[in-house]
């Protein structure tokens, strides 16, 4: 997003700018209030949760105990966290590796049928994931992978989007750059890992962060493919926790905060990449 920002002609008068900013700030506060309420409630003692007018800053705090109950209680968030981190990290890495190999094949090696195959890939991108949920369940069941982390990882690893994004990027890398390596006797794998991937770092980062967010937030997959509570990921954990502790709202909010926090952190540090990734899908031609 370089270059001059395209604004309306003329600078708006200072007064109206301040007015609009104040209005937007109010809307922003209202937008964020459910999240703020969640954080504030997670620190309250149960009896104070529904005090009205709302206590934004808890008078009596029980935060430490609430989070201790959530993380070290009988339904342990520590387990869900480890499961989610495991599934998410492996899925992100494998989908990038598999995607990069395919993207290289689709953009840098000439072979018959290449472009037809790629079109087939693109066509299936338009099919909603839910359409194939039942057959995937059956396939995992028959492979003996049902109720394992491996089936979640496999399910997330073959991302047509990663192939697509990385291919689009690789198409922009000038041929001369890799031709030089070829003359020096480098094979395709060497070219991919030594030359292309280092240049592609920004688009890999973009995909990695988006994939992290999607896999971390995925609820439907684990809901259908897992049954053992000890394998639950964080989203299933939150649901199970809120079913088990339905009347302990302060604990439920502490659980929700625990599930959202890593995303907020990832967003704050990776904002640039997330925005670039989401925007690149929308700007056509």
């Amino acid at each position, binding site marked *: 997003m370089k270059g001059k920002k395209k604004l309306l002609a003329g600078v708006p008068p200072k007064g109206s700018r301040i007015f609009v900013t104040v209005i937007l700030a109010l809307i922003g506060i209202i937008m964020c209030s459910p999240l703020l309420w969640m954080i504030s409630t997670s620190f309250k003692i149960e009896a104070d949760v529904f005090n009205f007018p709302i206590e934004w800053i808890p008078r009596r705090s029980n935060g430490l105990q609430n989070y201790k109950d959530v993380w070290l209680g009988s339904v342990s968030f520590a387990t869900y966290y480890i499961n989610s981190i495991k599934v998410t990290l492996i899925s992100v890495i494998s989908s990038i590796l598999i995607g990069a190999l395919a993207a290289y094949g689709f953009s840098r090696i000439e072979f018959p049928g*290449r472009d037809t195959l790629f079109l087939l890939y693109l066509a299936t991108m338009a099919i909603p994931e839910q359409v194939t949920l039942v057959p995937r369940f059956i396939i995992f069941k028959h492979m003996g992978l049902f109720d394992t982390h491996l089936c979640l990882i496999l399910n997330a690893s073959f991302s047509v989007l990663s192939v697509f994004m990385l291919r689009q990027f690789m198409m922009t890398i000038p041929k001369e750059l890799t031709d030089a390596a070829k003359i020096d006797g480098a094979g395709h794998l060497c070219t991919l890992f030594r030359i292309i991937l280092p240049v592609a770092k920004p688009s890999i980062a973009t995909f990695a962060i988006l994939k992290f967010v999607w896999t971390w937030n995925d609820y439907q997959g684990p809901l259908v493919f897992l049954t053992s509570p000890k394998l639950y990921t964080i989203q299933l954990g939150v649901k199970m926790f*809120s079913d088990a502790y339905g009347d302990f709202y302060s604990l439920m*909010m502490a659980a929700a905060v625990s599930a959202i926090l890593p995303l907020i952190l990832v967003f704050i540090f990776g904002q640039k990449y997330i925005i670039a990734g989401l925007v690149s899908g929308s700007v056509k031609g």
Partner: protein
Amino acid sequence: MKEVKAATGSTRRMSLKTRETIKGYLFITPSFLGFILFSLFPLLLTVVLSFSEWNLVSGLSGIEFRGLDNFIKLSHDKGFINSLINNFKFVLFALPLLLIGGFLLAILIHNFAYGKKLFKTVFFFPYISSAVAVATVWRVIFQPSYGPINELLRSLGVGNPPGWLMDGKWALFTIAMMYVWQEIGYYILIFITGLQAIPEELYEAAKIDGANRWQQVWNVSVPLVSPTTFFLFVTGMISTFKVFDAVQVLTQGGPGTESSVLVYYLYKESFRLYRVGYGSAISIILFLIVFTITAIQMKLQKRWVNY
């Protein structure tokens, strides 16, 4: 001698080409295997299953071919029809709000306010949060008897505030509201990107013609951002048809099937009642809807987007 040389040259070139072909296929093999196993084959299986009856518990031998039975049954199934209608209600409520609200906020943030970056971030927080965790929060906030929303309404003099998620008339609406709240940051972001692509000279020209700021927005920004609006309209419609997480967490489609949607009904039939054939028929309907939207989009793209 010359001929021999030429011949070896051509076989060497041939073998180089063949080698490249083999290498090309090797590079795409891992991805392609996954593609076949988890996309292409499942899609075909969905089609086959949608014409059969199969209870998951009965094993592979229990599959029976039933022709169009599932689809005929669907056309009389109140739960299914309700879910389908609910999806359309969802689109009608959420999409205009997202498009108009998203555009207005984008214009205000982009052209009129201080602290553009901060606003973009603040409005984006709900989008990045997980639907499950957010739904948990909404369930508490909209708790009918002592949740903060109804306390607020009562203190404002509303004698009998709605039961929100517990109330058949309000449940779907409450879920749609949460959806709008979560998604609007994305719409703002994409609209701002669209606005940035409008050449500044056009605004200057409008100004010379005597257009004030709002006339510039109406006559320049609105038409020129229409490709973005169209993109968001189409993708937005498709993604509302995929809504699942919030419904599953908040209401389980209830009370009754008042807040059920297509994907939730699909999930319930397939994985709660184990009616896999029937569930697959619902998948096919979902596929056809999304396919139709995509096809219409491709047809209309040129006509709808105007400069």
